[in-house]
């Protein structure tokens, strides 16, 4: 294919964001301890995941922390084969949304099972995940 003439700019830009977590630091600290927390609004009682410092719908900043037991059922899932640039080193990964017994839904990777064995309604467990570089996240595993 003929490539149209273009100026090959060498002014590349690498952007890495700092992600502020001061107001939800408990969530990230507890993940390191192997626990996954959600937040609950003291005013309207709504349990929320991912955690928040403020309740938008009722305008309250009176929030309490609740540990999630993590028992859930798959609502839907997919396997990401063509990956974005910053995940290009990863093997294909399964992303699932599961509804927990506490009522909230969570999106996370599902590991330890092949896509062919998955079905909607299947029981999964939500767990904290600590990487070798101390980075923390959470994932689903088969229950």
């Amino acid at each position, binding site marked *: 294919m003929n490539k149209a003439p273009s100026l090959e700019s060498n002014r590349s830009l690498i952007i890495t964001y700092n992600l502020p977590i001061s107001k939800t630091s408990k969530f990230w600290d507890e993940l390191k301890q192997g626990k996954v927390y959600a937040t609950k609004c003291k005013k309207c009682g709504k349990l929320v995941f991912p955690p928040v410092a403020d309740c938008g719908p009722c305008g309250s900043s009176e929030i309490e922390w609740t540990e999630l037991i993590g028992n859930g059922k798959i609502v839907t899932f997919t396997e990401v084969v063509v990956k974005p*640039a910053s995940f290009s080193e990863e093997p294909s990964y399964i992303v699932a949304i599961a509804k927990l017994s506490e009522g909230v839904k969570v999106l996370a990777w599902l590991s330890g099972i092949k896509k062919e064995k998955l079905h909607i309604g299947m029981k999964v467990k939500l767990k904290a995940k600590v990487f070798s570089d101390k980075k923390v996240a959470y994932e689903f595993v088969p229950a």
Partner: protein
Amino acid sequence: MNKVAIIGKGHSRFGDRSDVNLAELSFEAIQPALDASGLTAKEIPYMALGSMGVWSEEPLPAVVIAEYCGLTGAGLVRCEAACASGSAAVFNAYSAVMSKQTDLALVVGAEKMKQIDTSTVMEMIGRAGYYMWEFENFGMTFPAYYALHAVEHMEKFGTTEKDLARVAVKNHRYGAMNPVAHLRHEITVEKALNSNVIAWPLKLYDCCPITDGSAALVLASESKVKELKIEDPVWIDAMGFASDTANISKRENYVGLSASVKAAKMAYNIAGISPIDVDVANVHDCFTIAEIMAYEDLGFCEKGDGAQMIRDGETEIGGKIPVNLDGGLKAKGHPIGTTGVSMLVELTKQLREEVKPTRQAPMKNYVALAHNTGGTGHYGFVSILRR
């Protein structure tokens, strides 16, 4: 309030447009839109641009395009509503004319996505779900988001991968007849089903391509239409809008987009019509499952019956309501911020019966509908046009 008419339109060829920069590409749509309206650039008091940017080098595309196209001095804004940025720009200009702030406004959609590599484009779009909770740790992509919808839709309603392929086949068939479409080749169900998996169950032919392109519209008030002696314009009868949660996990279900349902109801109400009055529609088929869900969300059929519509050919010419006769996002292409404007250019042509007979919808009520969503159903716009 002013009634708002479309009095001029322009559309570039979509595709890999490495031959032009963003301003030159925009000129290809803007100048024909001005010519068709009998106007020159200096007569335009206001321009709204739909553009996501990031894949092309200019952070302030509206000013660059305005200078290049002779519009400097006009009021300018760039509107962002992800893949519905074009509709957001239309709504911005439409509101300005409707509220009598101005009698004339130019709407432009312009996007050049081919200036960076494909995996970086996947990254930039994937980040536009909810970066903090869905990308940072989980690397979501847009095919993956729509795959989550496809899996639940298939489970709940028996929609199949073959049904998804049928949408691609239909849109490629019409795209092949559209001289400005990006992908102008027909495909078969087998070819679609055998294409590479992108995010299971979505395959290459379930996904719209990465495309460069521009589109433009000149909007005018009723008095301006008379003053310019524009005969038989197309009117924007209504625009409906809505949104949904940033976190996809907070949605009720994944078998439809509630922002589409709400925006459609608002538009139908304002226009005083129901779905059966619509002669032709363009829906947001960024992925094949999105078109099937749109049939349902827009009320063309009941929830769950979308796949049956494509099986029965109800959305082809000769069916109940022809959809995406320009090839849709799937084959015409989806230059993110251009799409909403491009849809209205196409529907204006359909209403004026200006397209090739082989892809012209039969007109009964001369009513057309455009459905444009942004993000993973985050933003929803539905527009109703009438001639």
